[in-house]
């Protein structure tokens, strides 16, 4: 019997010929990620009674959730992290401003095909877009990984999601993933390994693929794999921190479910308050008044997202009733957006351009919502209270839909604002 991607990676890491679904294995991840929560993790680590991080070279720490620090408490946390990193000799440290962890790890060459990566952040699934097995864990587990380098994992069953067709601007992989989550539900792939495949995935850019893997967690998946190909290898050329061996599922691998989607007649999608699986075509909520629009986050803050938004915003003005926040996902993205003139377009349109980081996505700072306000965001979560007030509403959509809606002040189908690429 052939093995799925998840089985092959877990078997290889455990030093076994094969692993069965449900089998628990003890493994050592190749890389582990933590972010601002490293302050808390380092304190838990000290409680274990081990002096030194066992494999400092395997840990990557990125400050992104509350950068730059907006309160004294956040500032203290960051200071403690800098001290911990220095004391433990953790070289892979990216301080405030470098970017959002899920953008920084790929850019710095850690998101490698066949690698096993764990992070104390649920969107660690993002690296599946590069053919890695990557999943989120908790803070205590990360502290134990610092101390021992080891963790137990259970081998998940796998779903194959086959996507045919080709996405045409302004329809994006965000519309596709919202459609998938809306159809299968917030627990539709609970504790399953998803393998995304098919013509539409092959045609997609790596940035578009990252949206799918990033949001695999929103239907409960443990990880979201996409087979690495020449686009992946070209991206990693000059970036990869070490040599890597791509892992592909066996042709006769067994899948618990095979789901098929066609992008041919895909309309722009939106997730309505207060769950990510509460999805409908944009058309159904068109005209809903918004107060804030956000383009950025680990889901949609990449260069192709900013380019798409700039095409729509170019020569237009953000509605007076709307605050449009734009957060490039990293310094690299920001620099390229600057050089291409995208930032100028945003500022001329009246957008508020913020530093690379998570921004208000999780409600910690930089543009939280007041009671009764409505935000349309390119992020991945719209839970009640997530961006500030529990009496605010969050809708999720693609960068195209958010840009078009920022101009009109109401939720708008981007096809109305976007005609043939240039206005």
């Amino acid at each position: 019997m052939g093995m799925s991607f998840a089985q092959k990676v877990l078997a290889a890491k455990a030093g076994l010929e094969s692993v069965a679904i449900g089998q628990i294995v003890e493994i050592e991840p190749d890389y582990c990620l933590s972010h601002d929560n490293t302050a808390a993790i380092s304190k838990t680590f000290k409680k274990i009674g081990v002096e030194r991080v066992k494999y400092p070279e395997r840990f990557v720490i990125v400050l992104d959730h509350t950068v730059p620090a907006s309160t004294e408490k956040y500032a203290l946390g960051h200071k403690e992290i800098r001290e911990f990193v220095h004391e433990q000799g953790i070289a892979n440290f990216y301080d405030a401003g470098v970017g959002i962890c899920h953008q920084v790890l790929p850019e710095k060459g850690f998101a490698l095909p066949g690698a096993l990566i764990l992070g104390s952040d649920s969107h660690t699934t993002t690296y599946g877009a590069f053919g890695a097995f990557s999943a989120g864990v908790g803070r205590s587990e990360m502290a134990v990984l610092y101390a021992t380098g080891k963790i137990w994992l259970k081998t998940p069953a796998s779903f194959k999601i086959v996507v045919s067709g080709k996405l045409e601007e302004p329809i994006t992989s965000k519309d596709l993933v919202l459609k998938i989550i809306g159809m299968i539900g917030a627990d539709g792939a609970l504790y399953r390994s998803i393998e995304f495949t098919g013509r539409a995935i092959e045609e997609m850019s790596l940035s578009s693929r990252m949206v799918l893997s990033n949001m695999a967690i929103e239907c409960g998946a443990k990880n979201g794999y996409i087979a690495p190909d020449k686009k992946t290898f070209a991206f990693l050329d000059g970036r990869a921190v070490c040599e890597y061996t791509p892992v592909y599922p066996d042709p006769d691998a067994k899948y618990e479910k095979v789901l098929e989607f066609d992008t041919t007649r895909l309309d722009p999608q939106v997730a309505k308050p207060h769950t990510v699986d509460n999805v409908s075509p944009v058309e159904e909520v068109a005209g809903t008044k918004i107060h804030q629009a956000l383009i950025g986050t680990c889901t949609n803050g990449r260069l192709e997202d900013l380019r798409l938004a700039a095409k729509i915003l170019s020569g237009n003005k953000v509605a007076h009733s709307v605050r449009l926040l734009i957060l490039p996902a990293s310094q690299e993205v920001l620099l390229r957006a600057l050089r291409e003139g995208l930032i100028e377009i945003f500022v001329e349109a009246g957008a508020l351009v913020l530093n690379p980081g998570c921004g208000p996505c999780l409600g910690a700072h930089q543009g939280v919502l007041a009671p009764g306000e409505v935000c349309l965001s390119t992020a991945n979560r719209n839970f009640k209270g997530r961006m500030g007030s529990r009496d605010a509403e969050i809708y999720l959509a693609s960068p195209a839909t958010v840009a078009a809606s920022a101009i009109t002040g109401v939720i708008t189908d981007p096809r109305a604002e976007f005609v043939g690429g240039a206005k």
Partner: protein
Amino acid sequence: MIEGRVWKYRDDVNTDVIFPGKYTYQPLEPAEMAEHAMEDLDSSFAKEVKKGDVIVSGYNFGCGSSREQAATCLKAAGIAAVIAKSFSRIFFRNAINNGLPVIELEDGVGDMEKGDTVSIDFEAGTVTHEGNTYHFPALPKEVLAILNDGGLIPHVRKELGKA
């Protein structure tokens, strides 16, 4: 064996409503975390929860963020166990790692209401409610060992000979 009063919730209770993100990066002690437990879902919870109470919920309990405080705050609030039709995997791990028992059970959950009493027999693997007894599967031995040691940190300290 425990007997507890039920707090009943729906499907897809996410970690943002269990423990809001605005507190996630603040250094709080477990008792302070308990004050914010369920803040954006049920404002009466933190005020009225008693030690030994049990949460009963639908599918996908604890979905969303990996924030461990979602488990820590419930444990600190006195919750003795969470019974749900299913759990998100990171919350499940976090609960075990905090010594908070999690019970996956579909049968009978629909009949359990807020304020009811349920008894849980961990050795027998049963939940009893109004005379009906429901069976839940035993946890894998590797996982049970962590729970029995009171959580991951005491478990690892024991394994490393630090306890």
